[in-house]
Structures are given as C-alpha cells and as structure tokens.
C-alpha cells in the first residue's frame, strides 16, 4: 500500500505533534502549518495528498483555507479535524469542500483509517456529522427545489442512521447486505448533496441549531 502524504494544519503545536505521533506507518507527515497564510503557502509548495485541517484558526479558520486552496483549482483533499461539535462549524467546512469531519477525540487508528479513506476519494462521516445531516435533511417541510440534490434516498438514510448508531463501514455493509464499496458510494453521494444542495434550509438549520 502506498503511503499517504499528509499536511497537518492546526494552531496548537502540542496537538500537531500529538497527531504526528499517533498516525500509523502508512501515513507520512510531510509538513505542518499553524495559520491560514502558512497553510495556503505550504499546500501549494508540498502538494500533499490529504490536509488535516483545523476548523478554528487565526486568520479566518479552516473555511478560509478551503476557499483559497480549492478556489485556485488545486487537487487536494481535506479532512476537517476539530474540537468543535457545533453544527455551524461542521456543516460550514463540509460545504466549504472538506471530504470529511472528525473530532479531535478520535483515536490514532481511526484517524489513520479516515485519512486513508479520504486519500482514496471517499467521504468520512463521524456519527455526529451523520446525525447533523439526518437532522438537516429531515427538518424541512418545504418541497425540495432540486429533488435529486435536496433529499436523501431511503438507502442513504439507512447508511447515515447506522453511522450515527456507531457502526463502522464494514459493519454497515454486513447489516445491509451490501459491499463496503457500496457503503462508500452512498456516503460520497450524501457528501455531494451536502455540498451542492442550494437548500436554504441547510444553512439556516445550522445557524438555528446554535441560536435556539
């Protein structure tokens, strides 16, 4: 298996070295960055496969890095990593273009697995993110503007529900009698909907979650 080249972007030095130490042998950490400016410059210079991106950083946070790097047309994949569980933050970075979202409490093995998955072009959903997506897509009474993008299929809903219940992809595949590859396809499809749906409710929902 080829090694995945990873850049860690986080403003906490202790956290960066912690992650570096925890990652498995299949991951090669090629560099670190501590703010938006240095992240954008380092990504352009090192061209890593996957960027581990902190959500809250000086200079605009992870969303700003996503906007500037993806806006320039670079082919880099992002995995957001944050202590924040706020819906606004989670939905924000996913809509910004991240391929997944995990919280910083994740174990080293799980993080390694998530990075590999993102490097392969798949999406990574934590149980909480799955819950947010179910909540956001369920909470609308308005008819979808684009039925293809604005609603989840029955199967996608089942997959998300199992992720929210704490199932790993392998366990989901077994539960639904489908292959792991199919599970990944469903999750990627949900990610695409989440990023492309223009549904007004999605952002409003995320904001309202915070303000209640």
């Amino acid at each position: 298996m080829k090694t995945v080249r990873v850049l860690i972007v986080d403003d906490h030095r202790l956290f960066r070295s912690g992650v570096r130490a925890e990652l498995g042998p299949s991951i090669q950490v090629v560099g670190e960055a501590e703010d938006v400016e240095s992240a954008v410059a380092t990504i352009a210079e090192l061209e890593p496969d996957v960027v581990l991106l902190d959500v809250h950083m000086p200079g605009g946070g992870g969303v700003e890095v996503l906007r500037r790097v993806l806006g320039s047309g670079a082919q880099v994949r992002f995995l957001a990593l944050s202590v924040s569980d706020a819906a606004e933050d989670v939905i924000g970075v996913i809509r910004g273009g991240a391929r997944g979202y995990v919280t910083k409490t994740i174990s080293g093995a799980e993080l390694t697995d998530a990075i590999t998955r993102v490097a392969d072009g798949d999406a990574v959903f934590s149980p909480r993110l799955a819950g947010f997506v179910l909540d956001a897509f369920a909470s609308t009474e308005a008819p979808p503007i684009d039925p293809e993008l604005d609603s989840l299929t029955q199967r996608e809903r089942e997959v998300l529900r199992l992720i929210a219940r704490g199932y790993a992809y392998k366990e989901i595949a077994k539960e639904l009698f489908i292959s792991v590859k199919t599970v990944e396809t469903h999750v990627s499809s949900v990610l695409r909907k989440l990023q492309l749906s223009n549904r007004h409710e999605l952002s409003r929902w995320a904001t309202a979650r915070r303000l209640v």
Partner: protein
Amino acid sequence: MRPRAGRVVAGVAQGAAAQLRLDPVVLRLAFVLLTILDGVGVVAYAALWMFTATEPTEQPHGSRDWGQVAAYGLLGFAFGALALVSGAAAGGLAMWPIAVGGIGSLILWQQAEPGRRQKWMTSTVGRVRATWVRSGIGLLLVGVGVIGFLAAQDQLAQASTGLVFTGVVLGGVALIAAPWLAALWRELQKERTERIRQEERAEVAAHVHDSVLHTLTLIQRAAHDPREVTRLARSQERDLRNWLYMPKQDADATLAAAVRRAAAEEEDAHGVPIEIVCVGDCDLDDGLRAMVHATRQSMVNAAKYSESPVVSVYLEVEPGEATVFVRDRGKGFVLDDVPDDRMGIRQSIIGRMERFGGTARVKTAPGEGTEIMLTMKRTTP
C-alpha cells in the same frame, strides 16, 4: 396617599378624605361643585392626583365602582346644566381651558411616574406605542388648554408674537444642543455596550474558574490514576461543550435533553465514554420518560458489563415515534443465558417499554457487542 381599592376615579378624594378624617363623599361632592362653578375642581383634582403617590401595594385592586362614577357624573352634569341655565358659571368659563390643559399635563406627568414608566417600557411594543399615544394626547390637550386660555382672555393676538419669539429661541437652543445631546447619547450607548461586554467577560472568567481550573487541579492530584484522569477530562469536556455550543435545554421537559443528561450521569458514574447523537427532539410524556429510564439502564449495562471502551447512543425522533439505539462493541452475551432473576434487561428495559406500549429489541452475540433498540410511540408535539 391614594388607596388602590374603592376608587371612583383615581382615589384622590378618598385619599384626601382619609388624611382629613372626613367622609370621602363630602370631598367628592366638593370636587363636583367646584368643577361646575369654574372648573377649578378638575384642576385641583388633577393637581392632587399628580402630587399624591399611589399607596404602595402588591394586591390587585378591585374593579372600579362604575355605579358611583355614573352617579357623580350625572350629578355634575345636572348641576352644570343648572349653572349654565342660570348663568352662574358665566364668569368661570375661562377656567375650562385651564382644566383641559391640566388634564393634558396630568397625562404627561403620569407617563413620568417611575414605576409606571418602567411598567410600560418593559412591556410589549404595543404598550410602548400606547405610551406614545398617551403622550401625544397629553401634549395636544396642554396645547389646546394654553391656546384656549389665551383666546378666552382675548390675548391670543398679542401672545402670538411672543409665541413666535419663544419658538425661534427654542429652535435655536435645540440646534445648538442637538449635536452635544447626540454625542452624549452615543457615549451612553457605548458605555452600556462596554458594560455588557465586561459582564460577559466576567461570566466567562467565572465559568472557566469554577469548572476548568478546578478540574485541572483535580487532574494533577489524580495523575497516578489514568482512569480517573480520563473521567475528569471527559466530564469537563462535556460540561464546557454544553456551555459553549448547546442551547439551554430543560432536561425535565424534552426527550433529547433527558437522554443527554442520563448519558452524562452514567458516563460520570462508570468512567466509560458515552457518545450521543440526537436527531430531532420532542416533549416528554409518560411513555417517553419510561424510555429514558430504559435507555439509562441500557447504558449502565453496557458501561458496567460489556468491557467496551465506548458506548454509542443514537436517538431519533420521527413524527410518530421515537427510537433509541444503545450500542457497545463489548463482549456481548447470549440472551437466553441470562438468569430469570436478573432484573436489568427483562424488567428495567423490555418490561418497562412494553408496559407503556413500546418495544425493546436486544441484538447480541458473544464477541459481537450488544445493541439495544427501544421504540416508543409519541403523544406529544
């Protein structure tokens, strides 16, 4: 001191009567008569209304005796008609504008009474609008009173030059003072914002001190016990997260909040992280409360016996029903092997759910972990 109970109009006569040790009827009649003679009664009444405070009482005052109001009104009307016919009040006609003006200023003064103003200001927008309407009516009445008085004295023509002069001077003063007043207002606003910000900062500092610093101290003292350190850190993390990101929820009122609280308590008690994901929420009813208990029992079982490093809880509220999944990746067990006398699963989970019309399903096998699925119909919005 004006009493609140037993008023006819505003309790002025009653208050004054109590002060003078007279029967209020005597004073009421005196006010009516004075009003008919030259309007002085109204002015005096208004003045007394302004200057006597309301009896401070929290009791809701009884409703006005409208019969009495009508009686005094009729009496005054009759006397007034009589006086008009006989021409006795002719000389006092000039007093009427004063009376009108008096009522106007009375309304304005009423607005300024601190307690009342506060009551109006803290109320809804409608109340505030009512305040403006009242102020407008008050100003109008004062204006009518003043002009009427001048007209009655045939001095309106002379006064008009004076009025114009006064108007010009007032306008000039307003022009001069306006920027300064505006600056003062802005300053006040800024100070207010600053104060609010400081209060917020103080609140954050207090919270950080009470919780985070306290926990850090505890962690240092418990450094030899990794399990305790993890427990403390988890508990603090949860607390801080709730404080930062969670809307304030009442754990006695809604399902998601109740499940979260139960998870937090069991996590603290057993030192096993419980990950919780909630989709949707609804108010609690008896069935859902039973489900919260069953959920708690499931979490306790998972934390105590499964040896799983983490327990996942998923709550989904759908239009017709609520579902909870409690899952661990622990050692699992064979359901039929559980002795009948063990109350945990059969009574506290399955039995409890079924008593309230819900269902509980246990999915487990040795080495496969355990998942308990609880479903309950909803009756609440």
